[in-house]
């Protein structure tokens, strides 16, 4: 995948220079995080909820073949069509085939991270199909030609002035930057698109195996319009996004909305079980469910399996100090923040994404809020370990750690080395700190000071201080 014109550090630099982004990201983070904490407080027993939600997700993943079989049997019983897509290009091919069969000229979409993952819009447009994103945030970034910068709030990096300019361009007249006017314009413009679209494409927050239902969560109502007005509805789901029954759905939905925005429930929760029935005169005449693997099955049975529990709430983004400073685009992939740093290298490989597991201070805030208890920062460490074992580190780093390992296992040499490094850094040091380090040290000193190595090792200091043996007296 190459949505990234710049290398990781280039993207980070760009984000750090972007003043609007550096205001908007912390502001949004604080609002969403505040909502989440308040919701957790109101529950009073959020740990009990997290434990149950985690158990439910783990049980589902461990029995994924069985529940997918049940789900797809029931979707067909409901009159829907099911398509399996081992890869992103298989999923795209299914959509393109349906679009061609229906002679579709325009497709309206509601927010779907999976469709971003398979770069669906680009492929549809290449076939001459117009694609309209209908979530307000997605519509804004589509007009701007950008990608989402947050799982839940995709356009947080845009100011109202920028939005007004984008919308004015579509309107052919100057719109004010008042939220109400901009929303009214989007309502009218997108309503027309909804009424004319040949196909509606949605994601899937959760599928329910026992009834063959696809459940969509939204606040704006665009997911409802997408799945009701066009004659054909295509839902694309990551293969892990299901629950066994409505009993489990209750728990995971309760956690999803509270963790995402702090809402007890979203404005709309819609369960669709196949196309319209003979007695209906609204709703799609055809329903297609595309189930996507795209690297997910390779995660099964590995140390990373728990990442598949993710319900895409974005809570980990909202507490992450790294995300706070660099925003979503710097991560380069479709999924940003801690979940992106864990997931993207798994789905797309270390070759292109080896920096992501290092885009973390390992503070563990993400792990603490995750509603399904994914050990996110442990998995980041796991990645770092795997990267080292698979040779994705530089020879300088390898050599340095090899040397460090040798010294620390030889106390005499270690003492000598500490003294030597103190003396060797004298010329670099200013009042005990090194501000501009040479060579590999620059990676550290570019952004912070490094204390000058001490005159003596701890063991030596201890011996002098206590005057006795190594255990003191």
């Amino acid at each position, binding site marked *: 995948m190459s949505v990234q014109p710049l290398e990781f550090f280039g993207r980070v630099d760009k984000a750090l220079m972007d003043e609007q982004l550096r205001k908007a990201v912390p502001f949004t983070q604080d609002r969403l995080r505040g909502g989440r904490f308040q919701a957790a407080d109101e529950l009073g027993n959020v740990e009990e909820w997290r434990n149950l939600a985690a158990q*439910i997700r783990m049980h589902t993943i461990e029995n994924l*073949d069985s529940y997918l079989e049940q789900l797809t049997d029931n979707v067909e019983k*409901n009159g829907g069509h099911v398509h*399996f897509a081992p890869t992103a290009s298989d999923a795209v091919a299914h959509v393109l085939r349906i679009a061609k069969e229906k002679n579709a000229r325009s497709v309206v979409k509601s927010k779907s991270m999976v469709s971003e993952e398979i770069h669906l819009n680009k492929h549809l447009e290449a076939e001459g199909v117009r694609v309209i994103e209908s979530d307000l945030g997605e519509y804004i970034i589509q007009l701007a030609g950008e990608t989402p910068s947050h799982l839940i709030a995709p356009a947080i990096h845009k100011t109202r002035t920028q939005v007004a300019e984008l919308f004015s361009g579509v309107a052919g007249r100057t719109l004010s930057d008042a939220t109400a006017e901009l929303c009214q314009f*989007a309502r009218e413009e997108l309503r027309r698109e909804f009424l004319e679209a040949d196909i509606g494409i949605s994601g899937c927050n959760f599928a329910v195996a026992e009834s063959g*239902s696809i459940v969509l969560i939204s606040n704006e109502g665009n997911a409802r319009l997408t799945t*009701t007005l066009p004659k054909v509805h295509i839902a694309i789901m990551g293969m892990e996004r299901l629950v066994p029954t409505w009993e489990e759905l209750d728990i995971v939905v309760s956690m999803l909305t509270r963790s995402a925005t702090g809402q007890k429930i979203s404005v709309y929760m819609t369960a669709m079980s196949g196309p319209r029935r003979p007695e209906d005169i*609204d709703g799609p005449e055809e329903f297609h469910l595309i189930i996507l693997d795209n690297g997910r099955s390779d995660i099964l049975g590995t140390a990373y399996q728990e990442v598949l529990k993710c319900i895409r709430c974005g809570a980990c983004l909202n507490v992450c100090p790294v995300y706070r400073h660099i925003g979503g685009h710097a991560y380069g992939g479709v999924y940003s923040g801690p979940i992106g740093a864990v997931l993207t290298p798994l789905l797309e490989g270390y070759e292109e994404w080896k920096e992501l597991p290092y885009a973390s201070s390992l503070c563990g805030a993400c792990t603490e809020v995750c509603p399904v208890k994914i050990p996110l920062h442990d998995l980041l460490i796991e990645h770092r370990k795997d990267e080292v074992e698979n040779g994705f580190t530089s020879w300088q780093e390898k050599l340095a750690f090899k040397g460090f390992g040798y010294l620390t296992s030889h106390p005499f040499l270690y003492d000598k080395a500490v003294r030597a490094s103190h003396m060797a850094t004298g010329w670099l040091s200013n009042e005990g700190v090194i501000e501009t380090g040479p060579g590999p040290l620059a990676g550290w000193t570019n952004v912070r000071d490094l204390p000058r190595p001490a005159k003596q090792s701890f063991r030596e200091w201890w011996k002098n201080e206590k005057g006795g043996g190594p255990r003191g007296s």
Partner: protein
Amino acid sequence: MAAKEREEFLNRIAGKLGRARRSGVKPPRWDTKPYAHLHQGLDHEGLVQQFIGNLRTLQTEVLRVSPEDAGQALDRIFESASVRSVVYWDDERLHAIGLSRLLDEKGVVHRAWDTAVDEQELRNYTVGVEMGIAYAELGLSETGSVMLWNGGGRGRLVSLLPPVFVVFLSEKTIVPRLTEAAEYIREKVPARLPACVNFITGPSRTGDIEMDLAFGVHGPGKVYVILLKG
């Protein structure tokens, strides 16, 4: 669905999980009910009050009236929202209230979601209409949600296209939370669910422009609940 495609897909999953294919797995009995304490000590009136309170914080007015006073509730709504045209569910419960007669009295244009009518014509009418009226199956007190059981004369567009949405709810059908609604739905699974079941909680909202809360960007920006006593 191609059977071979599915087999390969599912076999791969089983293989990666390092075990034989499974089929017919049922979820275990979960040993905790983390929601149990949320409604402890609330009697039914307490649930009704919680329902009303939750919707108030979501800028949604709840009008609690006896069924015979439904007309008065509508009067109050018509005073605050300027409405000249209405579409409503072709639903026995609304007919029993005498909705069509009440709307005649208000002098507004109105039509039921009559499935015998040409689909495109009814849709075009609904696109231009200012108010939709439906009747909810259940209310959830914890969240202030209503559950709509769509199908046939209970068209989904009625609660979606018009800028104002009015929903009737019998206060008897208010339950604590999604848990009870999920049980209700599970009982209907063997006979097959309708193509669409909606849970609606207040007006359509967005915070996508600088996190500034705005209503009605896609769905109805104004929602009223008429809560029928008894």
